[in-house]
């Protein structure tokens, strides 16, 4: 493994790990807010227990998210000083805003998690809302940086240096809105389906059913709404990529030859040598329509680019197919959920549905990671699209294989510990609450 690949792999592992916890930090506070609000409104103890139990999980996940985020802020320089030397002055500002939002979130979380008996109940509810708002906001700000990498603006690149820097233009680049929208929705979908899956698993064990049943309801409502909106934001993003990063779209679609009209490729395994896709379903004209809104539009293929600047087609294409497939599964699940809600069907009697929810537990997060593979791998070989190649940004220090190995080991270990810890938290939950009467009002 050469140093560049080790650096890229370490960054990938760090992001893959961090983003799970960041998403939970973005979406869970909203679920907790709804639970606490329902408690204040109905007085039913099950909702208070829900808010408090969820906050235990959130505290654990938040801490891991915070430390892994700290690691990332250093890794930007540890692994990519060539990038940061130039990009720092251009796109540093969204990071300061992210930092401010995150700061506010940590403060509000301190009050929310530990201040149950120290502040007035409405102040407490308010702190939960602040956590949610600050979490979403910090996510939106940090995405501005990635959007800039894909859509560089706010500077002129002359003789290997950035001049005429305009941080405002850089931050408000043309990619920010669609990336931020899609990511925020994805965070909600991924977290909600994971939460629903966990509670469905516990509901199947027939313990503390009132609690888990209501938890699923709250989680799935968020998840379903997000799942409905994701294809819309995804379409906006895809059209944007078709226009501004045609090589990425071509890789996503395994479109080796520029085509007018272009077919949509579903599934399949791209063959870069022979420039075709095997085992795929092709729907004529559909890619032209999705990418450009016209059934006969020309879609740029990889043939327009020198092979040296092709993204890794196989990885990008397959990641994209996975993301869309799992997105569709969540959408269908969302439809079923709303059907059950509308018809007032008690899902406790629908074991097949609960089992489905358990299977769908990781699906949102897998789609999320796959989506990031699409955009990050699809941006290669560039780190700043069209301006700086990833290989020119890497640290001169050799031996990155060592730190990659170390970080991967630590994060793998941490992942197992977190899962194990969560199981024990659930055990604690059941031990404490099986004795209580949950229909009591406080």
């Amino acid at each position, binding site marked *: 493994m050469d140093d560049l690949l080790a650096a890229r792999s370490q960054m990938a592992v760090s992001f893959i790990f961090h983003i799970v916890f960041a998403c939970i930090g973005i979406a869970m506070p909203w679920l907790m807010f709804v639970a606490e609000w329902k408690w204040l409104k109905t007085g039913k103890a099950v909702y208070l227990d829900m808010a*408090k139990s969820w*906050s235990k999980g959130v*505290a*654990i996940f*938040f*801490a*891991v998210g*915070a*430390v892994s*985020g*700290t*690691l990332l*802020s*250093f890794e*930007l*320089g*540890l692994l990519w*000083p*060539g990038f*940061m*030397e130039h990009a*720092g*002055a*251009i796109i*540093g*500002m969204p*990071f*300061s*805003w992210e*930092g*401010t939002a*995150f*700061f*506010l979130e940590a*403060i509000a*979380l*301190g*009050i929310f*998690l*530990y*201040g149950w*008996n*120290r*502040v007035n109940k409405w102040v407490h509810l308010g702190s939960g809302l602040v956590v949610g708002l600050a979490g979403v906001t910090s996510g939106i700000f940090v995405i501005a940086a990635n959007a800039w990498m894909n859509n560089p603006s706010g500077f002129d690149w002359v003789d290997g240096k950035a001049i005429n*820097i305009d*941080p*405002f233009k850089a931050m408000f680049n043309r990619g920010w809105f669609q990336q931020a929208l899609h990511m925020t929705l994805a965070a909600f979908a991924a977290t909600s389906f994971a939460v629903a899956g966990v509670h469905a698993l516990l509901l199947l064990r027939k313990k503390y059913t009132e609690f888990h049943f209501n938890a699923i309801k709250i989680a799935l409502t968020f998840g379903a709404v997000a799942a409905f909106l994701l294809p819309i934001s995804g379409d906006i993003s895809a059209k944007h990529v078709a226009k501004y990063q045609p090589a990425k779209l071509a890789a996503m679609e395994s479109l080796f030859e520029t085509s007018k009209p272009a077919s949509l490729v579903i599934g399949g395994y791209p063959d870069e040598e022979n420039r075709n896709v095997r085992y795929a379903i092709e729907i004529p004209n559909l890619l032209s329509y999705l990418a450009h809104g016209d059934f006969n539009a020309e879609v740029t293929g990889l043939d327009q680019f020198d092979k040296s600047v092709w993204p890794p087609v196989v990885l990008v294409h397959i990641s994209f197919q996975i993301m869309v497939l799992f997105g569709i599964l969540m959408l269908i699940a969302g439809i079923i959920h709303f059907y059950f809600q509308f018809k007032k069907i008690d899902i406790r009697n629908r074991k097949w549905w609960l089992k489905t929810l358990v299977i769908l537990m990781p699906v949102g997060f897998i789609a999320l990671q796959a989506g990031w593979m699409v955009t990050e791998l699809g941006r290669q070989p560039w780190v700043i699209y069209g301006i700086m190649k990833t290989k020119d940004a890497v*640290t*001169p*220090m*050799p*031996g990155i294989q060592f*730190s990659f190995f170390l970080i991967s080991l*630590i994060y793998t270990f*941490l992942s197992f*510990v977190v899962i194990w810890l969560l199981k*024990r*938290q659930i*055990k*604690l939950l059941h031990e404490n609450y099986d004795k209580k009467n949950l229909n009591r009002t406080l």
Partner: protein
Amino acid sequence: MTELIILVLGVSVLLYVLLGGADFGAGMVELFTGRKSILTISKAIAPVWEANHIWIILAIVILFNGFPRVYTTITTYLHIPLLFLLIGITVRGTAFTFRYYDIKDQTQWYYTALFRISSIVTPLFLGVVLGAVMMGRIYTNPEAGFYELFIYPWLNFFTFLTGIFVCLLFAWLAATYLIGETKDEEENRVFTQINILLFISLFVTGAGIFIIAEYYEIFLFNKFSQSPIGLISVAMATFLIPLFWYGVKIKNALISRITAGAITTFVFLGWFAVQFPVMVYLKNGLHLTINNTKAPDATLYFLIYALGIGIFIILPAFAYLFNVFKFKKDTSVLNE
């Protein structure tokens, strides 16, 4: 404008030392007090540690936004000590949180061990990085070998003594803050004893750094004597020491905390004044200063505005957090 940003950077690092530093210090104090004080320490840190540790992220963002070459130089050549620092931060935060929330069985021992070890490792390597930045052993010549570029700048007695100083400083601050976190007379007595021990060690180590600096040609005595602010800072820090001990003696937590914070601030100010305007000393003499590494004006302009608005939002919120947890009545945080 540049000076204003440097001021915010300095304050951010100082607040990290005063607040986040104490979190690490608490882990070190636990080594002395053992299992008896775990509850007191956990309750003291739990609500505030995550907010406390953001100051370092703020400092990093100001660096890579406002002074990118300082950031990239440090992350390139001090990669290895930074890696240890980061592993320490990761292990400490997770070990503490897991210990707090998990079932209280044998696993507590593992969490505690990891928490305490990482509480030492992190400040140690923070001090190493700090020492390396002051020493001027960083080669930027790409022809140089792996050892010269990536090991030599930080692997020596000066940097590690600085690391030990930082550990002792954090531990002393924690021992100070912990007095008064509980009403238990016995516990407070123990914290006070540890405080005395730490303070003496800190003072001796500080003196040691000045002496060993001569051997490494950093000439701290000289630099301080030529800097008016440096001298005043040393004087002020010294004068505050009796006031600190008075506060400890009469068991007034407010006096002891504020004077400890003030002493630390003056030590920090002294170091800052002596270092200014250099950010990183380099082997080739072309030191990285505030002026030769600063980002273009447009960037600094937006940065200072972002910081201004951020401070306006954060400081009241931060004050509120501390008010809720340090000044209001405790009604059992741990039972949640």
